[in-house]
């Protein structure tokens, strides 16, 4: 009497073949922390589900100056990434312990806001995604991956199999602000990487989460910093710009108004943290 199907492919190859065969109506599930509550609660009734826990994607390798993370690596695995402290911090601030043992780096890319904080950290690090289908593989930047609320650049039949993160050359900082200090959705999350040549900023990446349809870059804030010194004046200007350009929403934990205010405060605090680390 149960018509549901659950596929548990043992390799990426098998997974992409299943996806090609069953098409876009198959729900692809990583750690299950987003999909399973909806199924348990009777909100969604997917007839075909593919779980990726056995697809051989739980790995972290570190070839020359790059960290390569299999999409099914858990957030707990990220706590060991000593090379990139902001990924450790970002991972630690997702859920509680058991959720971190289940939630995956790949899954976090698909978490609807205000979830998806880890993806914001990846965005600040200029992560690239490897997308694989039966037709082959391609690499896309995480910034270009998102196309709208719950929509991505994934083509039918494609899976995110790997996240490639260059070891940051700049200074980084990460701050998540929620209504409590752990296991809570973000009011706003800020991840930043700033490259400095002496006093001047040569390159900056500021990613925000929970203030847009998906993790976003604060491009205007980045432009303000570019070529400027990183000091309280430029930091304030960048923070104001970020608050202006973000697209916050209201939900159970904060209003659009408050989120925008907090973008300004937290971009400032994040950038100040970077200057403090000099």
């Amino acid at each position, binding site marked *: 009497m149960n018509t549901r199907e659950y596929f548990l492919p043992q390799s990426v190859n098998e997974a992409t073949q299943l996806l090609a065969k069953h098409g876009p109506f198959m729900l692809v599930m990583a750690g299950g922390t987003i999909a399973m509550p909806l199924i348990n609660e009777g909100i969604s009734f997917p007839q075909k589900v593919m779980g990726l826990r056995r697809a051989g994607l739980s790995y972290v390798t570190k070839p020359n100056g790059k960290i390569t993370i299999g999409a099914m690596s858990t957030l707990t695995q990220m706590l060991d990434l000593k090379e990139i402290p902001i990924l450790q911090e970002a991972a630690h601030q997702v859920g509680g312990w058991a959720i971190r043992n289940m939630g995956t780096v790949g899954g976090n890319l698909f978490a609807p806001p205000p979830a998806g904080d880890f993806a914001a950290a990846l965005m600040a690090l200029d992560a690239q995604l490897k997308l694989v289908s039966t037709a082959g593989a391609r690499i896309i930047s995480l910034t270009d991956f998102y196309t709208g609320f719950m929509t991505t650049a994934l083509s039918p039949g494609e899976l995110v199999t790997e996240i490639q993160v260059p070891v940051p050359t700049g200074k980084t900082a990460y701050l998540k602000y929620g209504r409590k200090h752990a296991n809570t*959705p973000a009011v706003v999350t800020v991840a930043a990487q700033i490259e400095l040549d002496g006093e001047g900023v040569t390159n900056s990446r500021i990613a925000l989460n929970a203030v847009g349809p998906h993790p976003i870059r604060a491009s205007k804030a980045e432009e303000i910093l570019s070529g400027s010194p990183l000091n309280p004046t430029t930091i304030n200007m960048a923070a104001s710009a970020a608050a202006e350009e973000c697209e916050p929403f209201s939900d159970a934990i904060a209003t659009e108004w408050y989120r925008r205010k907090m973008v300004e405060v937290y971009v400032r605090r994040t950038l100040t943290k970077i200057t403090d680390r000099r």
Partner: protein
Amino acid sequence: MAIIKGTGIAAVNYPTGMNLGGDPSQALIHATTTGNFFISLSSTDLGQGLKTVIAQIGAEALGVPFENVLINTADTDTGPHCMGTFASRTTHRVGNAVVQAAQEARKVMMEVAADELEVSPDDLETDGQGNIRVKGSPDRSIHIIDLALAAHFKYGKTISGRGIYMKPKSDVDPETGKMDPDSTEAHACTVAEVEVDTETGEVKVLSLKSAYEVGRQVNPALVEGQIRGGSLMGMAHALYETTQPYYPAVDHMPGGFSEYVLPGPMELPEIESVVLEYPSVNGPYGVKGVGEMTANSPIPAIVNAIYDAIGVRITDLPVTPEKILRALEEVEI
């Protein structure tokens, strides 16, 4: 960024019981032939520890060891009526019913012991260890097992008792509101210390220090449990909790623990308390009640502490960071 500290106080009373419809509860006690005492109830344990404190009260009133008193609850076929667990009433109401039932059972127990020891019941006492002994001659005693066997097989008596506590119904006078709605009053005073981040409106509760007066404590560890749990619930009500974040609008109602904001172990303030005992007039052994009130005094104490810190009185719960920030902005303008 400014972090400002503030202190606030609040002092409250809390009534035990709610008898506007009459507020009775019953208890039945019977002894087995092997000297165990079953207390039959239909009362429920929500986690506060009813099954433990009622056994303590029963053991005390019967004069037998705690271990020999067993609680049978809650079954409508075997347990007599109880209004329910609410209104901080169960220890007081059910406790009183148990004391009354225990007195009746104890009377039979002492009569049988008197026959066995060939003395008057008035000359007997219980030692709380399972023996009934002649006052002044502790070597002349009988154990409750022997006594219960004798009652059943030799004298044909049931060692049993019935108890009820009822506060009669009080009708409210519709014109003046004259009424007698409760049985006794417990009290609490909380001093809250907070820290407010004026840039985000975030409040951190540093400490909740309280004095409680709850009548006699039947089980101090369980009272302490109510205090700790209630303090955090009060703090949650003050700063975090709402099913309708934009009340009276109904938008964005939380559907689970991630959106319904509750403080966790990371938000724990320092919680310290003293408990005073002024036995009540009508509670069993002077009990009042502690279950509900522990969440009450922290709320206004925290709100008053926030005012002390920032000079803005938020009178709309929960006091979210957003409400504080908006209030601060209005002041600045």
